[in-house]
């Protein structure tokens, strides 16, 4: 089919010729496939094993509860009694005790995705406002590359004037900020009294904690899901450490 734009369009279902496109497609689709498998495990209690060899020869695998367990089970099909037994056990497991940590991670993921939606809506509003301002067409809001010498000098002068007033205003606000930090401390926010730490706490709050968050099966920790209150499986300890490093 011939289309005028390069938006979303159907692709031919055969091996891709372009090598770099193939690599990118593999990476994206592999991630999407594992995502769908994870959702299916959560929604229906299924146990899924996926094995994919990349064009470069590496192997990617996803397994719930684990790759080793499922591949071991798959390699011993003759133990029918074991399979039947595990089926019954699996059914009980699904009905009575969903994995708390996985449910907790799913809740965090849902929360972060909801926040993303809010930011996207906010962006739409801001873009509309920006469009209407461009129609007004003030010379000083042009792109910097389009300014001439006079305009540039005048804008620099104006900005420096505003900056002087701003610095005076900030010196006044620093006192108010100290007062705010004091209130922050009294309300139990960790790290109050130091502006840098306070900003860091704000950032972490924005990402990890929402007073309106509802956890059906689990009491959330105050900050992050690797708090001491959350039991971390030993098999994932290394990954958790690595994750902590990435996060900070």
């Amino acid at each position, binding site marked *: 089919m011939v289309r005028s734009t390069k938006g979303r369009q159907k692709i031919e*279902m*055969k091996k891709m010729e372009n090598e770099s496109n*193939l690599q990118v497609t*593999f990476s994206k*689709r592999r991630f*999407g*496939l594992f*995502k*769908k498998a*994870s*959702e299916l495990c*959560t*929604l*229906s209690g299924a*146990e*899924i094993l*996926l*094995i*994919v060899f*990349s*064009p470069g020869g*590496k*192997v990617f695998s*996803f*397994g719930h509860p684990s*790759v080793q367990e499922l*591949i071991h089970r798959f390699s011993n099909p003759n133990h029918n009694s074991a399979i039947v037994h595990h089926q019954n056990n699996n059914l009980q497991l699904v009905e009575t005790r969903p994995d708390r940590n996985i449910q907790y*991670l799913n*809740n965090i993921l*849902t929360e*972060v995705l909801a926040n*993303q939606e809010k*930011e996207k*809506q*906010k962006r739409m509003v*801001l873009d509309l*406002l*920006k469009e*209407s*301002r461009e129609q007004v067409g003030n010379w000083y809001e042009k792109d910097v590359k389009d300014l001439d*010498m*006079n305009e*540039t000098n*005048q*804008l*620099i002068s*104006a*900005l420096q004037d*505003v*900056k002087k007033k*701003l610095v*005076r*205003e*900030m010196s006044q*606000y620093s006192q108010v*900020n100290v007062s705010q930090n004091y*209130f922050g401390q009294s309300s139990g926010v960790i790290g109050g009294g130091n502006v840098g730490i306070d900003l860091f706490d704000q950032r972490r*709050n924005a*990402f990890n904690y929402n007073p309106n968050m509802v956890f059906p099966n689990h009491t959330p920790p105050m900050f992050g899901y690797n708090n001491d209150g959350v039991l971390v499986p030993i098999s994932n300890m290394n*990954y958790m450490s690595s994750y902590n490093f990435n996060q900070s």
Partner: protein
Amino acid sequence: MKKVKLSLIANERSRKTSFMKRKNGIFKKLHELSTLCGVQACALIYSPFIPVPESWPSREGAKKVASKFLEMPRTARTRKMMDQETHLMERITKAKEQLKNLAAENRELQVRRFMFDCVEGKMSQYRYDAKDLQDLLSCMNLYLDQLNGRIESIKENGESLLSSVSPFPTRIGVDEIGDESFSDSPIHSTTRVVDTPNATNPHVLAGDMTPFLDADANANMNQVQYQAPNNLFNQIQREFYNINLNLNLNLNSNQYLNQQQSFMNPMVEQHMNHVGGRESIPFVDRNYYNYNQLPAVDLASTSYMPSTTDVYDPYINNNL
């Protein structure tokens, strides 16, 4: 599109139906992946609903791929291996990174708009706190660097074109005069407000707004907090209305400027300087003591999206 809650589906019939649909979807995706990229892959699904596990592409095909998998060295096997927990952590990390970028972009747009409004002499119309001022200062420093770079570029290229209308040194002063008369209108009445530490609380903020809004606007503001998608755009329309007034104001300002051009004598210039100098005093006073309501959209955003309090890291780094 209806959002699916990420937890075990309680109703067993719905759970089974969802399982069947999604299982086929996964097999389809696996087929597309292996066909497009020319790679080997397999899937194995155990479920309480089917006694025999389902395989893709077939039982023998899956067994062959599994055997190839087992023949690989252990390190190569486990390097890219993940279970549901590690996969969810990866997704959370990616989602948080995206959220951080989105929030930073939105913050930058707002601060830039705040900066240009300050240049136009509208700082008193904003309600801001110390962090807003810090971000504004960082944004201005960044923009001044770009402008200085622009000057260097003009000098290097010998680009000496002047704008068709040569602006007066007090061009900004003219804007301030216009804004002053504009600020006297009922829409932008200026009243003294004492800031409080709870100013950033959306509810307190909404309360503080009450004395400055008429009944209809107050009703709209209340609705904004609970029916954001509709009233958010009502707020946008109010903003459009304000900008149209601003546009008329700019036209008047241009006419005034054109009128001045026809009298290029020193007396007029002195008069302009005098007026500009006199106007700067109330501007400074307003900066110190007068704080007015937020722009409509920012108020709506603040009321509706209280969790967006992220810090724009590059600016903070510049400020440190």
